[in-house]
């Protein structure tokens, strides 16, 4: 990973208050980015299990997609979410959650991104997200 890239990414994250609210960070290895969401009690949605709030998992994966797009398309303005479909596969337990984004297509204006989130075992994801994101700066939405 280049120093420039790493610094640029840190700047992106630092500029987003909600990233700090969630407490998420990222790890960049070459062009492969892993987003990390350490567990904290404030993220819980079901105190009986306990399980992470479904909205938190969705938000974490959406942020992962946005950050990955920012890394991959540095010349563009911060992308804006058009739509997301979130699938919940297993309860998110009181553990660190990881996510990786797969940018399936980057068009002139719109990108399609798939994200998967897991905890202890990558092969047993807790949730997945598919979304479309607006990239162009001049597009009114």
């Amino acid at each position, binding site marked *: 990973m280049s120093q420039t890239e790493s610094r640029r990414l840190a700047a992106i994250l630092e500029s987003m208050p909600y990233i700090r609210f969630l407490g998420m960070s990222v790890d960049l290895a070459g062009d492969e980015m892993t987003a990390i969401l350490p567990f904290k009690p*404030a993220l819980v949605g079901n105190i009986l299990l306990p399980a992470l*709030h*479904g909205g938190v998992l969705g938000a974490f994966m*959406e942020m992962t997609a946005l950050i990955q797009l920012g890394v991959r398309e540095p010349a563009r303005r911060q992308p804006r979410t058009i739509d997301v479909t979130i699938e*919940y596969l297993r309860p998110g337990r009181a553990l660190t959650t990881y996510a990786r984004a797969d940018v399936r297509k980057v068009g002139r204006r719109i990108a399609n991104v798939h994200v998967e989130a897991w905890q202890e075992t990558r092969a047993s994801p807790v949730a997945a997200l598919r979304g479309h994101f607006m990239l162009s700066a001049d597009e009114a939405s």
Partner: protein
Amino acid sequence: MTIDPAVLGAMSARMVEDTPQAKALGMRLVSSAPGDAVMAVAWRADLVGDPATGVLAGGVITTLLDHVCGLAVGGAGAWGQPVATLDLRIDYMRPAEPGREIIARAQCYKVTRSIGFVRATAFEIDEADPVATAQGAFVLAGANPAR
């Protein structure tokens, strides 16, 4: 099945107050009727996604919509069963207005023994001018032994 409105209201309020993430976001229950729930979240600087615009992060709206959908499904079925999100589709129509409270209304339009189907809208004042809309399916806990 009819639920006593007072009981439903009290249980709905607990579903918000007893949820750490709902409290962390400052969510509040506006109203709840069988299959119909309304919640709100106030604008806060630490919940902003893009500081250049001051617009709330999409994730805040996602969590609000997920929660209000779960509440509507919980109130539509045999109350007392916890619900878990199966899937949720969210369309973001426009950025939320900075500084404004966001309201979300969910309507569970069909509930079977195991699944609740729900639609929701997030808006500032006018439900007809939404910030985002959602469509989801929720599992009534206990209905799926695999979970």
